[in-house]
């Protein structure tokens, strides 16, 4: 991939989600092909720590009977353990890829920290645990990309293509706003013409989180690329998607 100038640094925000490893590998490949720097970040969820400090905090664990007490000490320990696991995985993967990468951890509200980081990094890859119990996200599946702005196509599409080519039999799922779908599709078709990748288009009458969740849920999606610099995608929509998505999300500045 050569036409992604402008991506200088990539941040990958990791937690203990099942697909963190796949996300990190994707991030490594992207960093390699874009010649960009890569940084790993673990967000210690302040909300969880607050919750655990409340006197009545209980946890309902699927597969067990009754609620389990939570404490700030145990939550701190759990989060620390998660951070260490993620850091170890990050170090191992970066060593295997022969890359010098920085890893850091921050404590705060997850969405705030993610959105904040997305403004400071050209590319942010986020892996999050879903609220719901779902079947595991397939390692093979489509890469969904939301395109609302013609001028941003050349910015986000190469990244989506690069991520999708990891398993190109599934290709791209391009989500387009209904109002300018024809123009966008024409531009996108022209852009991917010689890229050896197939694209399927889904027209969205509403570009809200619920609609996007529904559309990606129907199409065996393994990752979603969102453009934070696009006028057509509201910040609240991005927040809502991040709050409830069950697959990794890539935020392109």
């Amino acid at each position, binding site marked *: 991939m050569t036409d992604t100038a402008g991506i200088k640094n990539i941040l990958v925000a990791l937690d203990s989600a099942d697909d963190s490893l796949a996300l990190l590998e994707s991030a490594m490949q992207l960093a390699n092909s874009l010649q960009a720097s890569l940084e790993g970040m673990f967000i210690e969820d302040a909300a969880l720590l607050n919750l655990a400090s409340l*006197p009545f905090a209980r946890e*309902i664990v699927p597969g067990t009977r009754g609620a389990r007490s939570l404490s700030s000490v145990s939550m701190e320990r759990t989060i620390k353990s998660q951070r260490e696991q993620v850091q170890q995985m990050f170090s191992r993967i970066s060593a295997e890829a022969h890359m010098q990468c920085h890893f850091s951890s921050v404590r705060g509200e997850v969405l705030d920290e993610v959105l904040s980081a997305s403004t400071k990094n050209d590319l942010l890859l986020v892996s999050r645990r879903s*609220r719901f119990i779902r079947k595991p996200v397939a390692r093979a599946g489509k890469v969904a990309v939301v395109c609302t702005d013609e001028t941003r196509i050349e910015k986000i599409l190469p990244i989506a293509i690069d991520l999708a080519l990891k398993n190109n039999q599934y290709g791209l799922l391009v989500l387009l706003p209904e109002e300018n779908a024809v123009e966008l599709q024409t531009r996108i078709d022209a852009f991917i013409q010689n890229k050896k990748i197939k694209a399927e288009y889904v027209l969205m009458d509403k570009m809200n989180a619920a609609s996007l969740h529904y559309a990606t849920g129907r199409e065996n999606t393994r990752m979603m690329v969102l453009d934070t610099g696009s006028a057509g995608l509201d910040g609240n929509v991005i927040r809502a998607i991040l709050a409830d998505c069950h697959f990794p999300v890539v935020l392109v500045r």
Partner: protein
Amino acid sequence: MSSDKALDPKQLCWQCNPDQFSFNTTDELEDLTDAVGQERALESVRFGMGIRRPGYNLFVMGPAGMGRHTLVRRYLEKKSAHEEVPDDWCYVHNFEHAHKPNAIRLPPGRASSLENDMIQLVEDLKSAIPTAFEAEDYRLRSQEIEDEFRERQEKAFNSIQKEAEEHAITLMRTPGGFSFAPLRDGKVMKPEEFDKLPEKEREKIETIIDTLQESLQTVVDQMPLWAKETREKIRELNREVTSYAVSSLIDQLRERYLELQEVIRYLDDVQQDVVDNSSDFLHSGEERTSVFLSENVPSFNRYMVNVLVDNSCTEGAPVIYEDNPVFNNLVGRVEHQSQMGMLITDFTLIKSGALHRANGGYLVLDANKVLTSPYAWEGLKRILFSNEVRIESLGQALSLISTMSLEPESIPLDIKVVLIGDRYLYYLLYEYDQDMAELFKVEADFENAIDRNEESSMLLARFIATQVRSEEMLAFDRTAVARVLENCSRVEEDSKKFSTHMQGLTDLLRESDYWARDAGKNTVSADDVQQAINAQLRRSDRIHKNMLESIERGITLIDTEGEKSGQINGLTVIELGGMMFGQPSRITATARMGENEITDIENEVELGGAIHSKGMLILTAFLGSRYAREYPISVSASVTFEQSYGQVEGDSASMGELCALLSAISKLPLKQSIAITGSVNQHGQVQAIGGINEKIEGYFDVCSARGLNGEHGVIIPDSNIQHLMLRHDVVDAVKQGKFNIYAMTSVDDALEILTGLPAGERDEHGEYPEGTINYAIESALKYMAEMKREYNEGKDKHREEEVEQGSETEEAHD
């Protein structure tokens, strides 16, 4: 007197006249398809192979090199060519009990086509099933099921979430599960903020959260049931989709194998299994992600067909010769392969044995190899009794191991087994193995020799022609054929017979061809055959030459001139490897007055075999019965082979020993120029012995080396004349009067030749005439008996005198 017993040179060797043949070279002769002189064996083979009854298997016996394998192979190939090609056999997966693979019988050639069809089916399924699952219809239906589950879940969670939000409480995902937390300004309330709340407010929040937790617990408890329901629905959908995709492909196969019910049943099982395991086909193209080889790797081996017996290219019934009949090669085996240090197996690793391949036809085995291969004989018998082949490892068969392995379905057996072995093996088995008579009811016994006549001569000539052509040798002219035939008689040691040892004959042909080519000839003549015979002898006569040299240098003492009593040249034969040669050995005897005691020194030092000892006892009996009917034998004698340090066996020297003993008793000297061989019975009659030609030639070589003087000769049993096939140089020496061969029928004949005196017969008074050999012997024995009697009387008198003297002395003391 001696000249009466001397044999005519014509009696010494049968010489084949080349002019009896009407052909010039073997090129003019037709091929011989049947074995020479083995009509009886062939008849047995025909019978044994013809009768289709249990236990009528064949044991072909005879010495190695008789052409047993060739005869059996030729006969079976000819017979089997007109017989029906047997069915194919294959093993397939048993979908109910994987460790018990099923055997399927198919018409010839159909097993391999089924194998190919199944390979193709799996390939087709690999594309057909994923295609079916990628179809829009399936995706929509499965999505509906997934959505139903998700919506159910989300609905339940959203309901709780909504209820929580009404009380400013949020549902959170924690590292281990779910929890509720009160909110303030859209964020989880901090503990210090919560502490600042009025107590009633805190209690209210806690109560609400308790209620919410109960609701959530109910939902969480139901989630596995919902997930299970969803999985069931997906599974049912998958079965429906797979069935549709699979049935059309398998139906095509069903049509192809419509008449084969076993295959149809197998295809039904395959269809069911594919439907039950459709997910294997969905992920068949994915890369392996696990480090464990067996994990996540769908195996389609269970749909493969292991063709055990493929008769697609077989013409007629199979004739299998198993060269290495070890247990596994006979019965078949289940192989294992190592996977991550673990030995695993399945039905595709079942390998056929010779019994499978020969099923419906003939299996030829070497009896000696079967018997020397551990458990092969037991395994073969068990299978022949049960008439079915069951593959099991030796460990299983002997209950030595109990690890899980395969138990392939047994295959019914319709087979004729031909065992080829030596006679002693057949008789030993028959004697010691009671199953032998039940399982090998027919024996084919090969003749070692055939009568020599015009017909057999011509058959052998055609055999020679056949071998010459099949091995692309130079043609043999009739002189060469005649010389080969003479050698056949020599090998058999019988001038009236031909040896049927075809291996030796063929070797001689090959070597004659070599020498003819070496000499640049176009055809093989008698000279080349003779050169081949000479070369064979020369290659292996090192020890013979060493022994001759030892005699020439006087290390081994053999007199070939003069006369001596109590000493004679016996003849022995030594067999080393493939070489037999004769050697003279000095036999000496001594006699003195004694107590009828003839000592065999060989026997005393345990160097004499049982038969040799028997010979000694016979000559002792002869001595008594002929010469000492009316008086006791009062001789102590000893007989020995001088300079013999090894085991002496056989009774062929008993006549020599008797002559030496009689000479020692009578003091009559024996001619040392004449050697003797033959065994004797209690009446003094001479009996035939073996190795006659080598014995004569051995003595001839010694005399020849020292210079033949016309006095040299050998006395042989009269009954051995028919066995004479002497070397041409010996015959020539006899013709020239330089060497003599005498024939004897009794000890008297031998003694007359050896002493030059008449043997003598008892007159009307029972006495031998004076001047005869027997008179001298009897007189000596009588003399010794008299001496013994006198000696004993003198001893008695002396004792009496001593007794008298003793009593007088006692009286004087008194």
